[in-house]
């Protein structure tokens, strides 16, 4: 074989990395609605966000300082969630402040304070609506109805029961294929073999809203990670003996990988095991692929994430049973 080392090294790096910006004009497609709705067995309220699609690639320019574009929000829609036990809940715009418990963890003890909390990012100006009375209960089915002007959208989501987490531990283990070590949260639970299950595994650094359906509590470095790690039970063993919770990280973030996996002692994290239906599993798996797309020709042709909302809307309506534990 005849070649210089330099030549092929450059070539191979180029195979995956030499990129430059491309000026792409998406034309003017018809506007479609995007719906994001979730019901869970955690404490309510639950939220539905409605936005419009666009042909814009998004905000160009410098790193934002917390402002999220509000031009895509759809306000004034009729949003109704009903369950199979006769409860019908018409959603309302979220208030600016709500009185609820906030949690903290000190010296191995969980403590809470009742106070006024700002919803901040989950505001009506960004297209959010919240429930008022409905509860998420495992084994039941929920129905979403949205009416915007003359258009109507429906979706149905079953809330599958989840296997209960036996325990969670932070263990020192190999974090990267190159052998570097660090701490990872590991989960232990019994996996029912006689049924088909899909799971999502997540962890949160901020435990202030510990039992509430995740609202203001955020995933650390949320701008750089996608906290939707999905698992299919196809090859899971009957007892899961330390399945690590992973995050989907952008290729840029890989440069400074491991930042999110830093767990200072005494600082607790919350690990959540959520159940998914097949629709929800497929949706999150596809958006994770979009997230990881780096132009490699070894990846499949990209396609839209399949939603479960009829009427031609994008997005997902899902109902999930969550088992969660604290670990420090």
């Amino acid at each position, binding site marked *: 074989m005849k070649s210089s080392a330099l030549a092929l090294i450059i070539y191979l790096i180029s195979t995956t990395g030499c990129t430059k910006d491309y000026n792409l004009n998406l034309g003017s497609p018809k506007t479609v609605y995007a719906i994001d709705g979730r019901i869970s067995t955690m404490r309510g309220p639950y939220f539905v966000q409605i936005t419009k699609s666009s042909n814009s690639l998004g905000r160009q320019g410098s790193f934002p300082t917390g402002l999220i574009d509000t031009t895509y929000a759809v306000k004034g829609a009729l949003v109704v969630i009903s369950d199979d036990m006769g409860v019908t809940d018409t959603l309302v715009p979220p208030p600016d402040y709500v009185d609820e418990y906030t949690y903290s963890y000190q010296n191995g003890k969980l403590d809470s304070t009742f106070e006024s909390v700002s919803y901040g990012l989950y505001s009506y100006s960004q297209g959010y609506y919240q429930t008022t009375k409905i509860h998420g209960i495992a084994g039941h089915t929920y129905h979403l109805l949205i009416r915007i002007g003359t258009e109507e959208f429906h979706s149905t989501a079953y809330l599958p029961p989840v296997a209960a987490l036996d325990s969670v531990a932070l263990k020192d283990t190999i974090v*990267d294929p190159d052998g570097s070590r660090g701490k990872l949260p*590991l989960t232990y639970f019994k996996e029912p073999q006689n049924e088909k299950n899909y799971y999502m595994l997540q962890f949160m650094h901020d435990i202030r809203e510990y039992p509430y359906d995740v609202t203001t509590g955020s995933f650390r470095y949320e701008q750089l990670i996608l906290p939707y790690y999905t698992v299919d039970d196809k090859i899971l063993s009957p007892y899961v003996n330390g399945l690590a919770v992973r995050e989907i990280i952008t290729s840029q973030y890989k440069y400074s990988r491991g930042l999110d996996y830093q767990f200072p002692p005494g600082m607790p994290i919350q690990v959540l095991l959520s159940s998914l239906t097949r629709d929800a599993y497929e949706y999150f798996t596809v958006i994770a692929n979009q997230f990881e797309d*780096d*132009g490699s020709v*070894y990846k499949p042709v990209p396609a839209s994430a399949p939603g479960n909302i009829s009427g031609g809307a994008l997005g997902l309506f899902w109902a999930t049973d969550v088992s969660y534990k604290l670990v420090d």
Partner: protein
Amino acid sequence: MRSIALVPGLLCCLLFQVINVDAQDIGKITISLELKNATLEEAFNKIENLTTLKFNYETSGIAGIKGINYRQTNVTVKKVLSDLLSHTSLQYEQVQNYILIKRTKTRSSKTVTIYGFVTAVNSGESLIGATVSITGDKTYSSVTNAYGFYSLTVPADDYMFSCSYVGFQDLETPIAAYETHRNNIELVTKESDALQAVMVTTSGKKSIVQSPITGSHQLKISDIKKIAMAGGEPDVLKSLQFLPGIQTSNEGTTNLSVRGGSYDENLILLDEAPVYNPSHTLGFFSAFNTDALKDVSIYKGVFPARYGGRLSSVIDIRMKEGNSREQAVAGGIGLLASRLTWEGPIKKNKSSFILSARYSNIGGLLNLGNSVHFIDARTSKNKVSFYDLNAKFNTVLSAKDRFYLSAYTGHDDFFLALLDNSRLMKWGNTTVTARWNHVFNPELFANTSLLYSNYNYSYVTLSDSRDFTWSAYLRELTLKTDLDWNINTKNLVKFGTGVTLQDVLPAKTEPGKISNTKEVSLNNRSSFQLFAYVDYEQKIGKPISISYGLRATEFAALGDALVYRYNADTTAVIDSTWYPKGKIIQSYFGAEPKITARVLLTSTSSLKFAYGRNYQFQHLLTNSSVGLPTDIWVPSDTYFKPQYSDQFTTGAYKTFNNNSWEASMELYYRKSYHIIDFRDNADIFLNNKIETQILPGQAKGYGLEFMLKKNKGRSNGWLSYTYSRALRQVNGVNNNKWYPPTYDHRHNFSLVFNHEVSKRLNFSANFVYRSGGHVTIPEGTYLFRRTRFLYYSDRNGYMLPAYHRLDISAVWAEKFKARRKWQGEWVLSVYNVYNRKNAFALFVSQDPYNLDTVKASEVYLTGIFPTIAYNFKF
């Protein structure tokens, strides 16, 4: 009265007496005669000079007799004449001082067969496609087959026998064809360049105008070695991309799209055994070490009936047998990989072997570069390496029998953190072929082969607490026999039959050490195929030659297997049936007729028309345009119906200046049925209901291919232009509308140029221009959980910018020293001379610092890329 009659009578007698008195008895006249490569006419002139005899003959009647070597002293003229005229159809009669030369027999209606093997004198390698001609009043010619065998049946007579092959000196010798006999030929190489001499060149002189076949090309291994390549490594599959109608789906890779077909539609054979994954390092290198190869032929579209099993093309690669005259070693050393080939006789002129090995460890270099911070490869634990081994043994068992045993094995390890840091992939091919040639009689040649192919592939997930090993394999065994029957020079029949057994494991997972996974395995898929073919080549009058054939295959998918039954749109299972081992689950019959007609307009130009149908009973489930080694091959079953295609081709061909130049133009149209594609976002991981993820459809394509080639002279090369369109339509994809595949390129222009500057210096250049391929871009964007995502509508609706580049290379051979056995050469090449950053891919993805924004980015492969290398042989 009587006295008047007497006078003329007496006069005649007197004259006669006078003549008689001078007439000489040729049985008594002695001469000394020396002839060197003389014609019969020259011989007669010499005898006339030495005697008072005069020869009387028809010039045309003796013209064919030349090349006479004769040396005798003091022999009678009678003996000389007997010697000279033996083995000819002439006889002499002495009338006075005149020797009259006449034909002895009328042209006999008896026919004889001349047959044999054509080999290279230096190495004993058989020459494939050499032209053999017997010339007299008419010319009869043929071409040697894949084993160097030829057979010509001609009326009994004297002829000139000639044999030619590009790169070798033409052979011409008189032949007396009065009895059927074997005539083995050895040709001498033309070039004196030592390094070239042992390389067996290919492509006989039978011109593209004559043969009744369309869409075929042969590439000389020596030409492949001269074409400048990325990384400086000569590559069989990448060289084919410079030919018309053949393109790659992505730059730098070896996956071929032939006439708009996808890369799984090419049958790649190494010594007749199919190779399922012909590439190393994810398509960057092909799996063939050119040092071990003899010949590469590609048949596009309508291929001869003896080949079958794929829709688009057949790439027939033949290994060298090994020098049966002397030992030889050749190789190359490089930082990226090294090669070594050793060949030689086991029993001189009877048996020989060749062993060839190649090893590469690019990962080691990347790791070294990364650890000294020269480059950023993300980690110092990359693993990118491969090896391949070729071995061949052959022996002559008797005058009629020859036996060959060839084996190939190659293996890749691939973990490149830059590309996919979650898994280590491993894959490898092994092929073993055993072949037996038998010459039943001079007209009937048979080859029986037993072929075995094993392709296994796997990956290991790394550092994930769900770590497991996924693996799959494909094993195939074929027994077949091929016969060439030269009935007479107007009719040639090739026929054969065979059976193939195949066993596929589509997927299996096994837990790793610290695993939370269990072992899961999909059902094996077994199948068998029984096939037979007939290929008949017939000459009708002088200008028309028709080749028609039929290949018939009976395919059956076998148990043991659990077979599901699905609803109408294959989205759900409604039933399942268990089939025990060996029971037929589903069978299909495929008949593949082929016909090609060649009409000679003049002796150097022709028109051809062809139609053919091809079947393919296996399907590659690949979800990317280039393909991963972990893509799965599955045989046809109840839901995967066999794919088939119809192709129509027509072409015009002309050679100029005694074959120095050749030009061809071909038009084709093809339609394919039962092609498959995946649903959007298909789930193919360990899916035992994979049929729910597949959608069947159809494809069509048409195009124009033009090629102009210069074969002879110090400057040579070719120019090719292709205009093509390929489209597919699958219900469930792209809103059921026709869409182009990623490898559809409208225009494709290639120029390959080679110039021998001096005996030691050789210069090559190639230029490629290609219209952009197709990619899928989003229709719009939307927000979900404060991250911007994309939604799509059209598949492959966007065309990338055009691609073009220029490569050059120079080969400089060390001074040839007669007594020194070691010969070396330096190769300097520059890929992409004017540094154009051609678009390799286009994608839209989230801005890593700002997830509510997406960015469109273009990936380019490489700019200017120089390399230097050293080759040796001894």
